[in-house]
């Protein structure tokens, strides 16, 4: 049995205001086949927003992959990749 894909959403105010609020409904918006393969949690600002090298907010981590300018579609696509050929076998 594969491990759950861990999704960490930055709950920092900067990420939240710059588009991260959309992840509030992520649980409901996940496609059915992914629903029980994902564990969603929030994280405090990990500081990515302080440096341009990480890209632009909002930031979401899917397992160990950092997604900048994250939106629901990008994150779901990334979850799917992890599920299909994830590193956490």
């Amino acid at each position, binding site marked *: 049995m594969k491990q759950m894909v861990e999704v960490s959403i930055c709950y*920092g*105010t900067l990420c*939240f205001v710059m588009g991260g609020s959309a992840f509030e409904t992520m649980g409901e918006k996940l496609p059915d086949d992914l629903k029980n393969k994902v564990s969603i949690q929030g994280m405090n600002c990990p500081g990515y927003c302080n440096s341009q090298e990480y890209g632009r907010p909002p930031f979401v981590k899917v397992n160990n992959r950092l997604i900048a300018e994250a939106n629901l579609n990008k994150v779901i696509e990334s979850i799917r990749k992890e599920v299909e050929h994830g590193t956490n076998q």
Partner: protein
Amino acid sequence: MAQTNNATLIRREIITRLCKLYIENRLEDIDRIALEMAPRNTTPVSGNRCCIHKSRAIIKYRVMALLGFNVSDETDELESLYSYALRALSHKEPEKGVLTVVDEACTSCVKSNYVVSNLCRGCLASHCMVTCPRNAITMEHGQARIDPLKCVGCGLCKDACPYHAIIYMPIPCEESCPVKAIYRNAEGVEEIDYDKCIHCGRCMVACPFGAVMYRSQIINVLHDISRPNRQVVAMLAPAISGQFKATYPQIATAVKKLGFTDVFEVAAGAVATARDEAHELKEVLEQGQQFMTTSCCPAFVELTEKQLTGLKPYVSHTPSPMRYTADIVRQQYPDASVVFIGPCVAKQAEARRYPGIDYVMTFEELGALMIAMNIDLQTFEATEQEEVIAERKFAFSNGVLNSVTDYYDGPSLNPLVISGLHKKNIASLRRITTGKHDWNMIEVMACEGGCLAGPAGISSPEVARKLFNAQSGVQAEHPLINEMKQK
């Protein structure tokens, strides 16, 4: 309704930059914002815009709007943003209109409602050309072409084309405006007719180029905060509990950290509105008036002043929660600058009419200011037990009606809730004016679902509602939308 798309995010980024410059005392660098956001050697974020200079010009005009100016008031193209900023700090009375069109951004949109697609065969008969009553169509390189400045949008060419090659394209702002207040002027740029505009903000949300902007007052707020011995008091609209992932006390603490002297909840003023409106309702119904409407939504009130004037006598005379809250603030801080903070564009128009309120800020500006000052709500401790004011219900459709009925003890009510001033609901309201119905209390909100769906909120209406229900201590029920019964 607030949406997070690139147009919204760019606006928020500019507000953040503007706040930072002010706070760091570097306002003279304001003209650099456009250079920093559209640097040389990069393609503009939005991809295929024609060149960097246009992107920069668009950003410049966005900043101008955020400094509180009407973009079309520009007289000298070379006037720097720094000069505008200094002017913004010295003047206080803005002229008409809260919304303004960034014409540089607007010109990227479709030029007319009818467009010849590449299905056009350039046929011999040229039915389109022959049919057009304005001679707006010519043949160029074997295809028909519509001159947007001549086209009046009658659509006859579309019907005439045997290949169905001419398509109708809506102009998003015009399509969204429920009162026909935005139109294409002779230069092919959208213009707002302030005698018609009710400031609902629909065009701002609808424009895919973010060309419609509200004229911000944030620089004036920051300026007052920075003045020594100046008290600046924030009033947070009831929808605040749906904006951040934080409880009301956490947000209030953050707002004080921004430099505000004190923070008041507009729900406190809503208590007075609900109570007085209930008394007023009882009184007018007993006197034989057929019905009364709520008065807290400023876009609706403007609608009854500018378009549905027949409805005006039925609008409650009870002041809005913003005005009552300002009275409460003034008792404690008679000389303070009073700032209303909400999700609304129309509130600024309302506030300009009452001396008790100095400035209006939006929730997204509040968010941007937090970013500029490095304030992260996540780091705030979950605070003590908070006092929940039931009138936080004013944030959603049905909530105002609900609050009013809590205080009401008059003749039995047959209420109607109008949620969203789109064209169809405006038509319903027009019929209501004729009196052929048996509603006696009508709640109207310009945004579908109420203020939680306001155009300058931080999150989408769906998210705002979810957060509000989780954090505010009151529940936004699904609005009861009564069908209009025609007699």
